[in-house]
Each structure stands twice: as structure tokens, then as C-alpha cells.
């Protein structure tokens, strides 16, 4: 599964995208965040406060409870500050 990171999530994790194989018990966007936090210090720092992390599946905003099965790409990023 393709993961994409933006803004300070990208900076703290240290890469802008990666392909990962997820274990079967990672079922929701929230599960994904918890799983990623265990991957290293950068991930832990980037995702320490899950409440401020926004998730998009296939380029659409979703809730952290959203199932991720079948997702083509999942993006993680901070609250948006465009406009």
C-alpha cells in the first residue's frame, strides 16, 4: 500500500512516500497511525498526537475509523493552511 506524507509529517518522518505491507490486524486509518508510530523515532514524533493528523484515502478526506482495505494510496498530513 502506498503511503504519502505532507508538510511537517513528511519532514519528521523523513520521506515523502513509501510502499508498505500491512499486517492483517491494521484495519482502520487509526490502526495505521498506531502501527506507523512503532516504526521509528521519526514516525513516533510525527504521529505522537493522532488528533491533529488528517487522513485521506484515495485523495478523499476520511475519519480515523475508516477501513483502509483496498486503498490505493493513503496520505497523512497536518491540518490544512491553504487559501
Amino acid at each position, binding site marked *: 500500500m502506498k503511503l*504519502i506524507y*505532507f*508538510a*511537517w509529517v513528511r519532514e519528521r518522518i523523513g520521506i515523502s512516500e513509501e510502499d508498505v505491507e500491512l499486517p492483517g490486524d491494521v484495519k482502520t486509518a487509526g490502526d495505521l497511525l498506531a502501527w506507523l508510530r512503532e516504526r521509528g523515532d521519526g514516525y513516533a514524533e510525527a504521529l505522537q498526537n493522532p488528533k491533529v493528523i488528517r487522513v*485521506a484515502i484515495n*485523495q*478523499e*478526506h476520511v475519519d480515523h475509523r475508516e477501513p483502509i482495505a483496498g486503498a490505493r494510496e493513503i*496520505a497523512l*498530513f*497536518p*491540518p*490544512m*493552511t*491553504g*487559501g
Partner: protein
Amino acid sequence: MTDACVIRVAVQSAAYDTAAEIDAAKAAGGNVGAVVTFSGVCRDESGRLAALELEHYPGMAEGEIRRIAAQAAERWPVTSLTVIHRHGKLRPGEEIVLVVAASIHRQAAFEAASFLMDFLKTSAPFWKKEHLADGTSGAWVEAKDADDDAAARW
């Protein structure tokens, strides 16, 4: 009302021509009586900033803006809606975003443009990083509660 509304969305690093966009909105047809534009300008924060760097999520940025514009076209009798959002490094005084809303009536044009801006702020995937006047790289701009409140009023 969506049928009759011409929607144009662009995400680009280049500057845009506001006057040409207004003319296009008038020419898009539909008996236009009112055109409202919003231009978002990069501020220098009293000399503190050298530039803002706009990062975006290609593909989703266009898609999300188009989705917001379609919502506006459902709610107000607008004849055209244009949104151009820039990315990359922008210096103080440079424009970041343009919204143009055209309608037969002024109130619809004002409200659609204001609605679009409120939702661009809170749901279009763009992030601003500060570059400081002293040459260092500053912080990422934090999202404001006021922007969530502004979006919630609709």
C-alpha cells in the same frame, strides 16, 4: 443550478491574470450582473517574513477544490466559479489564491465566494511554511480555530 455553472479550477506555480479571469467570468454567459473576486495575498508580517512556501497534494488539491466549487454551485445561483491556487515559494505582496464568483445577483456572488474561501482554508490540501527575513527557515503555519469556525457557519 449546477448545470448552468461554469467551474474552472487551476493549481499552479505561475501568477495569474485577475482581469482576464473577470472577463472570462463575464463571457461565460448567464446574464451576469455581479462579479465578486477574492485575492489572498502573501503578507510580510511586519517585515518578519521573506516568503511563504506552499506545499500541496497534487491531484487531491484540484479534486477537493472542484468538490467545494460544485457544492457552492448547488447552493447559490452562480453562473461561473473560478478558483486558482498557487503553490511554491511566494514573496510578500504576491497573490496566493484567486476566487471569482459571477451571478445575476450580488448577494449570491458574495456568498459563494466567501463560502469557497472558508472551505478552501479548511479542506483543500495545501500547507504554508514560513521563510524568515533573517534567512532561516521558519515554522509551518498553524491552522486557526477561527477558520474552522468560519467554515462551520455555513
